[in-house]
């Protein structure tokens, strides 16, 4: 089973819908340990992504992901813009010219994207950020890809790993981003960035199969 351009587009559209539905929820999470704009920013960013997709329906996967990156960088703002922008930009570099991806290629692209996020944000596992959902997901995909799991199973295990990672952020004390100013008070709240990353992988598990 392969991931085609159409499935990539379906993933982005699905994610945009999920973000729109969860706009208030993400904003509420961001009110508790941030400045109450994560849901609004991500929704705005992905509405811009969807608009640009119309011109790129026939493009290769690398171009689709690069266009997504540039749309996010220029419309999300905050820390999420450059961070999600870097995720998609690095993924686009791995997928230039490709019209379909095997599960190994998808895994490699996502891993490159997540490494880019870690580098730009200078964050590590346990800092209570989006990485705490993304890193477990990449790990699960790699274990699935080199094992005997089919693509749908691999994507499921990635999404479940991201879900657990997102929940694990509740206990963490934030060391990066606006939440870090709260110190110990950031514990007991789920990280909004980890939540939007989990939702991205949930969308992938639904759309890429």
């Amino acid at each position, binding site marked *: 089973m392969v991931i085609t351009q159409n499935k990539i587009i379906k993933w982005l559209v699905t994610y945009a819908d999920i973000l729109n539905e969860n706009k208030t929820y993400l*904003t509420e999470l961001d*009110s*508790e*340990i*941030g*400045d*109450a*704009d994560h849901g*609004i*920013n991500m929704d*705005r960013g992905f509405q811009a992504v969807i608009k640009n997709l119309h011109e790129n329906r026939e493009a290769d996967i690398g171009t689709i992901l690069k266009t997504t990156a540039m749309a996010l*960088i*220029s*419309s*999300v*703002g*905050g*820390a*999420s*813009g*450059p*961070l999600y922008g870097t995720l998609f930009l690095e993924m686009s570099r791995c997928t230039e010219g490709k019209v379909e991806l095997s599960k190994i290629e998808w895994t490699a692209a996502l891993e490159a994207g997540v490494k880019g996020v870690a580098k*730009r*944000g200078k964050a590590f596992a346990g800092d209570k950020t989006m990485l705490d959902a993304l890193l477990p997901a990449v790990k699960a995909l790699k274990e699935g890809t080199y094992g005997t799991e089919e693509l749908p199973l691999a994507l499921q295990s990635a999404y479940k790993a991201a879900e657990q990672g997102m929940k694990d952020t509740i206990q963490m*004390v934030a*060391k*990066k*981003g*606006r939440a*870090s*100013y*709260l*110190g110990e*008070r950031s514990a007991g709240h789920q990280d909004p960035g980890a939540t939007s990353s989990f939702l991205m992988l949930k969308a992938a598990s639904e759309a890429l199969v």
Partner: protein
Amino acid sequence: MKKLINHPKDVVHDSLKGVEATHSDFLKVHFEPNYIIRKNAPINGKVALLSGGGSGHEPLHGGFVGYGMLDAACPGEVFTSPTPDQILEATKAVAGGAGVLHIVKNYTGDVLNFEMAADLAKSEGVMVESVVINDDVAVEDSLYTAGRRGVGTTVLAEKIVGAAAEEKLPLADLVKLCRKVNANGRSMGVALTSCVVPSAGKSTFDLPEDEIEIGIGIHGEPGRKREKIKTAREITELLVGPIVKDLPFKKGDHVIAFVNGMGGTPLIELYIIYNELAKILNSYGITIARNLIGNYITSLEMQGCSITLLKMDEQILRLWDAPVCTTTLRWGI
């Protein structure tokens, strides 16, 4: 929520339209991407000064565009950093051949977006340097946070460096000066209420009637600790103590004392705070050489204030007194 707005998603646009309508005699407002520049930009041979950040802190930064201060200001969505493409276009619009200095407040979003913009500018042949302002003493500067936030000293830096830029100082010297101002400024704030982000529709955090939040930033995010409401004298002591200890400010120092309103506190109260500040500094043997009181770096309608002290030397004093003509600060002209 009750606000004087039309629709939450149009707040920034509608407000910038208002700025354009009011000040088109010396400001130019560009839309999509949004930025405010001096009408006579670019000024050849002068380093251009650019800053920006989320909207909702007015007059920061748009209100500081003009002679003797900023050349450009980039307003993002409310409490959201501006984007690299926006910063890049504004940078190019004001670059006058002597380079551009970006003054960046230390928030993750601002730092990341300005970094990307600076990279893009350099790849297009525009010389850009950046200085990050991180004067807030409420956040312990450790490995375990995003670092100290940029707050009140940002306003002072924009004025002082703006005056030096007007004297045609080269980019490297302006960077040094900006870093000196940042190194000698310290701030701390307190909130009596939260604020309401238009698109969120409700307060960012709940502060009971009898409590205050010490060590706030400027985005409605909760601070470091919560205390019961106290007198103005007690609150001022809670803010000034850590500021003085942190630099440290010493007996005999001359300072600019800046009492800043967070947007929702009336002037009558800011003067009460200043009076307490003056008494405390007098007891420390610290001389207030210049002062600034009012709403300069706000957080929408938040009630509260921040205090900034900047240690002055002769250069800083002279540049502070130098002429300035913006919609907010105007003297010597």
